[in-house]
């Protein structure tokens, strides 16, 4: 019997918060992570305080007042345009895969993840190589075809260096987030709701638009939020395409502010705070949309869905899936492959000059690449495992504790709103001095990656936790298992598929990260993003392409292995 000497006073709080030694440890870990976010940023703000104040003035009447509004407008167009397109494509793909007879099953689940596995920097270069208005391989081929029909063009027909190019390529990288969230929601919504609509006289399309999608509104809101966050921090796409199109978006703009000498840290941090506010506003909006009681609940009973017969639409669905696959993975990879085999990038492919020299260079001659690969993959592994373990444990352990969850939500949502560049600079400032002098080591990268991917990990963990019925862990408690044992024997294994999805997301993000790596990585702690950037700045396209392909191959095989292993263990229990 545990008797609290201060009877009646601290009692309610103590027990209601569910504080056991284990949860205390969890809170401690979370507090450390919080410190990892707040300490560098706080330091950056303190350090740059005068600059920030000054930048407010320059925002009002200085040179920034002329550029910033355009940059913000561009950013809004790109991010919301991309999110809208991704919402359409992503939820449609999710619906096809979960509900229709055009489902591709396991393949269909993997498909939208392709975009995540090909690092955006590789994908966007692939697309630039394909759709450059003059030298694009695809444009070149198309022009040759059109020439046969007597249509002669010197440029085009497509121009990737345009607002459209920017929006569409950005949207390709937003689709996976929408897809993951929406299919998870669809798996939990009782298909009887849709069948009721069918017998109520509505066709499949109308049912989807009027019933299915509105019923999963919270999931849609969540995916919009994820999409906006990822769109805001996506750097490589606007960096590569925006320059050619002369369109500045905020992530590139902040990068440039910080890269200038002397660095304009003040304005950069001010703009970052603006981003933070925007994301917090969206969070509030999302909470309002997800008003309780009006949305599809997770039904406790098992159900089965009969796939919706799409008829001729089925081919349209297949076409969309194939098109998406082509757009995110196949075509850019083919483009990259072709370029990586050339001595220099040229649309007029001369097969006699194709060479493996670039692979040879990036893998063997460039001393940095191998250690960068090892570092990146190791870091990806550690960061993904650590973040999923912490956020997963937290989400599962506090599944029924609303207040704890809300606090964790706010905390883990924070890093998503901070541009990677800011994180890079803040980390240099914070960790090059006592008490933690780790600048130039792999540890500083580890900490930075942990912070940067925390939000993705937390979202994935939350949705994984939400899919487990509360009674399963309660049954374990009643069966005399401590909360720790309950977690490791019951909750974690059950949440595994969702956690694995999150793991993959974090892993791929870490391996493909470019921006903060540029700041924090050097010759002593090289990572892939850094080496890619070097090759981009000082080497040549074919080398960049070769390395991007190597990274893609490694990510794909690791992710494939991960899926294979977890699915195998999963199959035992569900067959």
């Amino acid at each position, binding site marked *: 019997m545990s008797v609290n000497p201060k009877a009646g006073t601290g009692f309610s709080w103590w027990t209601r918060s569910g504080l056991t030694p284990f949860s205390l440890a969890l809170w401690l870990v979370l507090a450390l992570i919080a410190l990892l976010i707040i300490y560098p940023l706080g330091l950056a703000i303190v350090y740059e305080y005068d600059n920030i104040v000054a930048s407010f003035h320059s925002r009002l009447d200085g*040179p920034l007042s*002329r*550029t910033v509004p355009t940059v913000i407008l561009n950013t809004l167009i790109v991010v919301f345009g991309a999110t809208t397109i991704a919402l359409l494509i992503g939820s449609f793909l999710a619906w096809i895969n979960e509900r229709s007879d055009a489902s591709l099953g396991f393949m269909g689940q993997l498909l939208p993840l392709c975009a995540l596995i090909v690092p955006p920097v590789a994908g966007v270069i692939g697309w630039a190589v394909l759709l*450059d*208005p*003059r*030298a*694009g391989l695809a444009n070149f081929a198309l022009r040759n075809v059109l020439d046969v029909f007597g249509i002669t063009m010197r440029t085009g027909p497509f121009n990737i*260096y345009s607002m459209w190019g920017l929006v569409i390529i950005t949207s390709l990288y937003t689709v996976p987030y929408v897809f993951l969230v929406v299919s998870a929601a669809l798996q939990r919504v009782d298909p009887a709701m849709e069948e009721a609509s069918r017998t109520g006289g509505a066709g499949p399309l109308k049912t989807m638009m009027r019933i299915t999608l509105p019923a999963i509104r919270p999931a849609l809101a969540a995916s919009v939020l994820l999409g906006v966050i990822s769109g805001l921090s996506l750097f490589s796409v606007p*960096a590569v395409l925006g*320059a*050619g199109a*002369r369109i500045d978006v905020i992530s590139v703009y902040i990068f*440039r502010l*910080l*890269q*200038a*000498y*002397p*660095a304009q840290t003040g304005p950069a941090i001010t703009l970052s705070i603006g981003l933070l506010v925007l994301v917090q506003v969206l969070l509030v909006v999302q909470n309002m949309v997800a008003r309780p009681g009006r949305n599809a609940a997770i039904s406790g009973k098992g159900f089965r869905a009969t796939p919706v017969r799409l008829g001729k639409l089925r081919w349209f669905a297949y076409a969309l899936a194939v098109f998406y696959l082509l757009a995110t993975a196949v075509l850019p990879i083919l483009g990259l492959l072709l370029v990586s085999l050339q*001595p*220099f*990038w*040229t*649309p*007029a492919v001369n097969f006699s*000059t194709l060479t493996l020299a670039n692979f040879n260079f990036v893998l063997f001659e460039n001393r940095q690449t191998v250690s960068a690969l090892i570092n990146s993959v190791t870091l990806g592994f550690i960061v993904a495992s650590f973040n999923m373990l912490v956020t997963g444990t937290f989400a599962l352990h506090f599944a029924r504790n609303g207040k704890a969850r809300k606090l964790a939500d706010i905390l883990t949502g924070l890093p998503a709103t901070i541009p990677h560049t800011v994180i890079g*600079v803040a980390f*240099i*400032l914070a960790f*090059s*001095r006592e008490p933690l*002098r780790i*600048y*130039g080591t792999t540890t500083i990268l580890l900490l930075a990656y942990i912070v940067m991917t925390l939000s993705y990990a937390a979202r994935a963990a939350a949705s994984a936790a939400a899919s487990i019925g509360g009674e399963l862990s309660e049954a374990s408690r009643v069966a005399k298992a401590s909360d720790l044992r309950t977690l490791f024997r019951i909750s974690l294994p059950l949440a595994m598929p969702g956690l694995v999805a999150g793991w993959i997301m974090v892993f791929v993000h870490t391996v493909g990260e470019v921006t903060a790596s*540029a*700041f924090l990585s*050097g*010759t002593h702690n090289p990572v892939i993003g850094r080496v890619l950037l*070097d090759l*981009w*700045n*000082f*080497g*040549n*396209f074919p080398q960049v392409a070769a390395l991007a392909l190597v990274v893609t191959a490694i990510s794909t095989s690791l992710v494939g292995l991960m899926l294979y292993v977890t699915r195998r263990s999963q199959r035992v229990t569900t067959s």
Partner: protein
Amino acid sequence: QAEIPAELVEAAKADGSLTVYTNIDPALMEKLSSAFTAAHGINVDIQRQSSSALAQRFMAENDTDNTIADVYYSTDRAFHDDLFAKGLFSKVEDVPGYAQWPEEAKSEGTITIGYNPYSLVWNTDLVPEGLTSWEQLNDPEFEGQVILTDPRSSVTSNQFYKMLHDLYGDEFLEKLGTHATYSPSAVPGIQQVAAGAQAIYAPGIHQVVTGLAANGAPLGESFPEPSISSNNVASLVAKAPHADAAKLFVAFLMTREAQTINNFDGFAPIEGIENTREMPQIVNIEPADAMAASEKIYQLMGLQ
């Protein structure tokens, strides 16, 4: 060529190694450092980043008392001057060979190791007849096919556009602003010209062009006059952990051996180096003036 005193070599060997911060082509740096190691048995750690990232990093390290760099060897002349003025770079007078070095290629805090006059680069398939003058950038024939280094990317590019402004006036830049697109740096930009994505690049960097042309890229290059040159300058870091090795390395850069490596098919500050070229006429634009004019230039070129 001055003798390198034995005491300096001894002291440098006692340092054991040194770190060079640079933004110069890694292949070249590789060759230089191997030659140095072969000559003196001292290892060189090369930290290579783009000039602004490098500057940031150096400053951050300095601010937190973490200085790693011994030698700063970059094309960012303005940065060198600035840091020397702030006392972060030390005087280079007592580097062996300084006295003999040409006057125009040295200052109190910097030694110019090589010249990189800006060039005009074109795709020989798209511009078969070639180019000779900066003015041709605005030739209507090439509208939309010209790619320029983003004026905002560095002070040296500020200097280049200031020169154009001084030569041809407001209208020229305004027209150029509507006529061309921008690349964040020369390396990807010249590759786009090689690929035929664009016809003309300016201001070009000779080493990048020769590298691509060696692979068969259809690139042509000329050095219009007047031009400005982005020079490879070396400085000694004041708080260098390996001050003697640093001094030895800079001295080494001034030797014939290093000059031959550094300026192959390029432009050397001293006479008589094999495989070097004749310098075009250079105008001197002070970095401070260039920065002062940058606002106006951005505006003219439609960047603000």
